[in-house]
């Protein structure tokens, strides 16, 4: 601090060595940056969830960095890598889970890939169409933590965790059902199909359904399920039937159920109880067929138009159906004949004594029932007959009816199925009648008749020749007589002309004169009233003039009213011009 300025006389200020600030306040900036940076790093580290590995057989649509893992439609993780396993048989999907989902990752947690499903019954499926496939997560019940999982190939019941119960339906075919197909109860969507498969024996299909909680209790031991699949169009002996449950089920199929109100013994059922699945509502709700009685019918005629499932009617009421149509060898006749097997439901035919409830036919003793049928057949003439249900479709059905004139027959209960006596069908009857008619016609001696006819004609010919020889001259004579008669008539008329006509002339002359005088009288009258100077006419003219004037006034009033309709109410006001 040397003072080399020129002002030496100015006292020097005291020089206080400044305390050097060792640490500048600027250091706050890097410290702040460090604190923020470390804070973010720590937060990042803490919020980082566990990494998991899921093995899939195929990872369709799974992309690293894009595919998310969702639970209850919320993203809880993200796929970070998709790799082949070491033995190249599987796909290993590594994923980073959210910190919050850490507790969910237990050993039996399930993962599966949700693919777009075009069944219309699931909105989630529509979501994947836009967002792509994602991996769905469902927590398990285990308490053990897990980080390696095996992904499911087919989605598990999408309903785990929801209150409700599962049931199993047995059906011959799957129909148009699929996973997610709705289950209806009184047209409410109350559940869905969660899986299906072939039964072990391969003879039926089982369909697992899930019913949501409040509705599962409507399933009792008597509940009937049927396929409400889409669109059921059937042409049967009973005509054209179209049946559908709802528009949705029309597209994706569905199942409906109902518990018949009348059925007794509505017991609660356990989970996974098995029910039969009927093909339609009518079948499902028809009373349970407990004792079916089978019969064989042997017909002579053609069975064209008869199909398995055709109804068996009794007086127009369905009492059973055709279960089979076969050819059978008749040993006695050394020929083939047709055998139709039918099943009838005796409780519909037979009302046990003292009991009026037809739906509880299961307690009827078989002997009583059979005795009743035997009496009907033997005494009353109950027979089976093939009838045409519709002339257009040509469908046939089996009718049971009384034919008192039918030859005597009995049911042989020893054979299985017992043969039920038949009578020829209506068509058959018609044909038989025709045939006998033709046979009779055949016997008619046409040739002889022709010969006779020829003989008759020649005889006629001879008669005519004779007629010509004998009758014509007679006729000539008659004609001449007629001529004479006409001539005399002519003369009579000429006389009338000469004597009566002049008289008439005179009469006409007088008439003409009378008319002329009448004319004169009339013209006089004319002059009095209508002549140009007639007083009547003058008065008439005046009257007409008066009327014309009045009419003019009325027209004026009408015009005025038309222009000023309010004058009717307010009266005439001074017009402004």
């Amino acid at each position, binding site marked *: *601090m040397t003072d080399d*300025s020129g002002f030496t006389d100015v006292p020097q*200020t005291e*020089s*206080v060595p*400044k305390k050097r*600030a060792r*640490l*500048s306040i*600027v*250091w706050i*900036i*890097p410290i*702040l*940056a*460090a604190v923020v*940076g470390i804070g*973010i*790093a720590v937060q990042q580290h803490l919020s980082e969830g566990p990494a998991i590995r899921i093995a899939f057989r195929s990872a369709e649509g799974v992309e690293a*960095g*894009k595919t998310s893992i969702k639970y209850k439609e919320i993203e809880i993780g993200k796929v970070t890598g998709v790799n082949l396993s070491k033995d190249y048989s599987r796909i290993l999907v590594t994923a980073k889970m959210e910190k919050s989902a850490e507790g969910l990752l237990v050993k039996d947690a399930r993962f599966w890939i949700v693919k777009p499903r075009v069944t219309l019954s699931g909105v989630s499926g529509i979501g994947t169409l*836009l*967002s*792509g496939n994602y991996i769905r997560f469902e927590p398990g019940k285990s308490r053990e933590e897990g980080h390696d999982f095996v992904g499911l190939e087919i989605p598990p019941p999408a309903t785990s965790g929801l209150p409700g119960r599962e049931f199993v339906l047995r059906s011959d075919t799957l129909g148009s059902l699929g996973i997610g197909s709705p289950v209806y109860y009184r047209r409410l969507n109350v559940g869905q199909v969660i899986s299906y498969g072939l039964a072990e024996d391969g003879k039926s299909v089982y369909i697992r359904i899930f019913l949501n909680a409040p509705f599962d209790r409507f399933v009792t031991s008597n509940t009937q399920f049927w396929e409400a699949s889409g669109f059921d169009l059937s042409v049967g002996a009973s005509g054209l039937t179209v049946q559908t449950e709802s528009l949705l089920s029309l597209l994706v199929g569905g199942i409906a159920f109902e518990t018949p109100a009348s059925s007794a013994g509505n017991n609660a059922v356990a989970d996974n109880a098995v029910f039969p699945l009927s093909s339609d509502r009518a079948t499902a709700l028809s009373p349970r067929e407990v004792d079916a009685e089978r019969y064989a019918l042997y017909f002579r005629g053609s069975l064209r138009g008869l199909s398995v499932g055709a109804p068996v009617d009794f007086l127009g009421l369905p009492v059973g159906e055709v279960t089979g149509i076969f050819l059978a060898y008749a040993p006695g006749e050394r020929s083939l004949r047709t055998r139709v097997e039918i099943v009838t439901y005796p409780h519909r035919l037979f009302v046990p004594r003292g009991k009026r409830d037809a739906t509880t036919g299961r307690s009827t003793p078989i002997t009583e029932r059979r005795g009743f049928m035997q009496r009907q057949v033997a005494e009353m003439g109950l027979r089976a007959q093939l009838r045409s249900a519709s002339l257009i479709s040509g469908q046939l059905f089996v009718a049971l009816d009384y034919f008192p004139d039918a030859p005597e027959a009995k049911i042989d209960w020893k054979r299985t199925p017992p043969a039920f006596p038949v009578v020829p069908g209506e068509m058959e009857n018609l044909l038989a009648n025709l045939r006998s008619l033709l046979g009779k016609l055949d016997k008619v001696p046409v040739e002889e008749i022709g010969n006779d006819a020829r003989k008759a004609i020649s005889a006629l010919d001879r008669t005519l020749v004779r007629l010509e020889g004998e009758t014509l001259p007679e006729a000539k004579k008659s004609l001449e007589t007629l001529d004479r008669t006409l001539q005399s008539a002519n003369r009579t008329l000429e006389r009338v002309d000469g004597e009566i006509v002049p008289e008439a002339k005179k009469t006409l002359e007088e008439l003409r004169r009378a008319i002329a005088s009448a004319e004169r009288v009339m013209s006089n009258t004319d002059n009095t009233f209508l002549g140009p100077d007639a007083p009547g006419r003058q008065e008439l003219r005046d009257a007409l003039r008066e009327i014309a004037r009045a009419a003019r006034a009325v027209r004026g009033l009408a015009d005025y009213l038309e222009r000023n309709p309010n004058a009717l109410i307010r009266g005439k006001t001074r017009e402004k011009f």
Partner: protein
Amino acid sequence: MTRVPLTGAAAKIVLCKVCGLLSRPSGPSMPGRCPRCGDPAVLRQRDPIQRTWALVIAAAICYLPANVLPVMTTQTLRSVVPTTIIGGVVRLYADGSWVLALIVLVASVMIPLVKLVALAYLLITVQLRSDRYGRERVRLHRMLKVIGRWSMLDVFVATFSVALVQLRPYMTVVPGSGVLFFTAVVILTIFAADTFDPRLIWDPGKTRGEDD
């Protein structure tokens, strides 16, 4: 450098940085204000090295998250894609526009890094009182001040994207926290380059003690 050049401190004359008026400070420890424009007269910034160091270190700290954290996050219906600066460069390069990739790489990654390294080099050499390459170091400092603001390009792009791409719900771009750190890096390096006093470079050539 045999002859010591006259400095303002030695001549007891201070130059106002705003209006350019030369004036005598009222005292060495209390320079006072410029008599014309009232700006505080400053002979030398206090603790220039320490201040610069602080800013450089802060920038270096921020440089790490700026490159690790996403600068922006693109949300589409399908996905949420966070993009870091390097990720953006890689994507641009993969898409074929390598010129853009190069520009972004240079402007956003290289320049801040170069600035940090260069400032550190200048500070270290000053602290070592090195008197070699004085002229080159001054040129380097001048260059740092010029290129500094170009790094704001990336921030600019991010801001624009965020403001323009708001096609809810189909696509949106939200800023990531990386862009904050990146901005901090750029601003801190600009300040650091500003705070660094190039006169320190040639200070070793004269007697020390004037920069109090």
